[in-house]
């Protein structure tokens, strides 16, 4: 432990409005902390630069999963353990359930929240690829009111987002129209578990008579942010999965991803593997599978 607990203030609040008041009064002065799986690591290493923190852990207004006819709404304070255990999410949004199980150990999943995973802004984060292919909307709240935007528009660059200093993530909203889609998610890391992503790819598509009528693709660790791959999607939608289409999709992906060399992998490897994962998804689309693979068959690949 190199950090000094006496160098940081930490306050607890009884309600969401109280938290928003603190954030609004002096925007940027207080840093929200929920499960601490990111900030407490920095704290122990002596790298936590924020002197004032406000605990959101356990706030009931952020800890809900609400199922309506149109959507499933997940409060920002919901943990990945709660997401994994939710039957309706597992049934209709299996990619999110699968990703939730990749987020560290059980102990980490019991503390890490979905808003934390997003706001932390890592391009390697596990939940975002699933949220992107499910067309999730993100709802932000402040004393000024709430606003709702496509999650795909949330990240602006490396660790940059539209979140303002006085705002919190209230919820993610997942539209309930993907149950019939062919869904795909594979993560490639150094080990089978407990490893940060080198590259991951998610997809959701409808195929009718061999023609891709609808498709969404996203990837992690291939750009400065979690990436929705609209250019690659555009090559595939409305087309039969001929060798030519597949070649064009692979080429489009290689142009669309902008990975870097870093401690975990190289740009070259990431590009090659991302294209191979797309190939694998296109194989599944060609076989016209009607349901996603069971998580046990589906991969976190070494």
């Amino acid at each position: 432990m190199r950090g000094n607990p006496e160098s940081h203030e930490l306050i607890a609040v009884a309600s969401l409005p109280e938290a928003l008041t603190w954030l609004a009064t002096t925007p940027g002065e207080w840093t929200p902390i929920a499960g601490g799986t990111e900030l407490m690591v920095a704290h122990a290493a002596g790298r936590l630069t924020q002197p004032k923190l406000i605990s959101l852990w356990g706030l009931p207004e952020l800890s809900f999963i609400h199922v309506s006819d149109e959507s499933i709404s997940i409060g920002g304070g919901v943990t990945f353990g709660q997401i994994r255990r939710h039957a309706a999410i597992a049934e209709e949004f299996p990619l999110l359930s699968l990703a939730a199980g990749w987020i560290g150990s059980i102990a980490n999943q019991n503390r890490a929240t979905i808003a934390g995973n997003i706001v932390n802004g890592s391009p390697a984060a596990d939940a975002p690829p699933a949220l992107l292919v499910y067309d999730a909307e993100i709802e932000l709240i402040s004393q000024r009111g709430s606003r709702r935007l496509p999650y795909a528009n949330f990240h602006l660059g490396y660790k940059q987002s539209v979140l303002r200093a006085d705002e919190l993530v209230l919820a993610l909203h997942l539209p309930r129209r993907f149950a019939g889609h062919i869904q795909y998610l594979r993560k490639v890391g150094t080990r089978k578990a407990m490893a940060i992503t080198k590259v991951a790819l998610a997809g959701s598509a409808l195929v009718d008579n061999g023609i891709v009528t609808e498709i969404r693709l996203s990837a992690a660790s291939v750009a400065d942010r979690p990436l929705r791959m609209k250019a690659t999607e555009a090559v595939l939608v409305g087309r039969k999965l001929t060798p030519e289409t597949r070649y064009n999709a692979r080429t489009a992906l290689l142009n669309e991803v902008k990975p870097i060399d870093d401690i975990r992998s190289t740009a070259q490897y990431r590009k090659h593997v991302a294209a191979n994962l797309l190939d694998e998804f296109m194989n599944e689309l060609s076989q016209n599978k009607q349901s996603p693979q069971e998580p046990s068959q589906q991969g976190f690949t070494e």
Partner: protein
Amino acid sequence: MSTCWQHIQFVVNGQHSAVDVPPMKRLLDVLREDLGLTGAKEGCGEGECGSCSVRMNGELVNSCLVPVLQASGASIETVEGLAIDAELHPLQKAFLECGGAQCGICTPGMLMAATHLLAKNPHPSISEIREGLAGNLCRCTGFIKIFESVLSAATMGGTNAR
């Protein structure tokens, strides 16, 4: 810069406790330094190794990642709460009998992760045991004897056996 210490109360292994500490002090350090409960160990200090595992309100957590303020009012279970007087917990007996403990550094965390697993799932398969303990690293045993210990405890009736 210094911060206001806070008076924090919680229940540890069934007993009320109160400490005056900085609110960002890690639960792990409060347990070890303020309460003298040195069972939970610091391995990595970043939530990777699980040697600081405790249960907080019935959920397994890494106590190195919990600022103590967030444990205010909570019920904490540590490895010291497993044995009742001189009577070892069935998991502790199984770890002894099956060679699940060697140097001992990871053992408290392994026991708490296993306790949590058996509380949620009294008869886990080997693969469920592997997942339940996936956040706990051991550099001595090669893990197999630990998995066998948990399986043995579950077969004997696990956490409800005593």
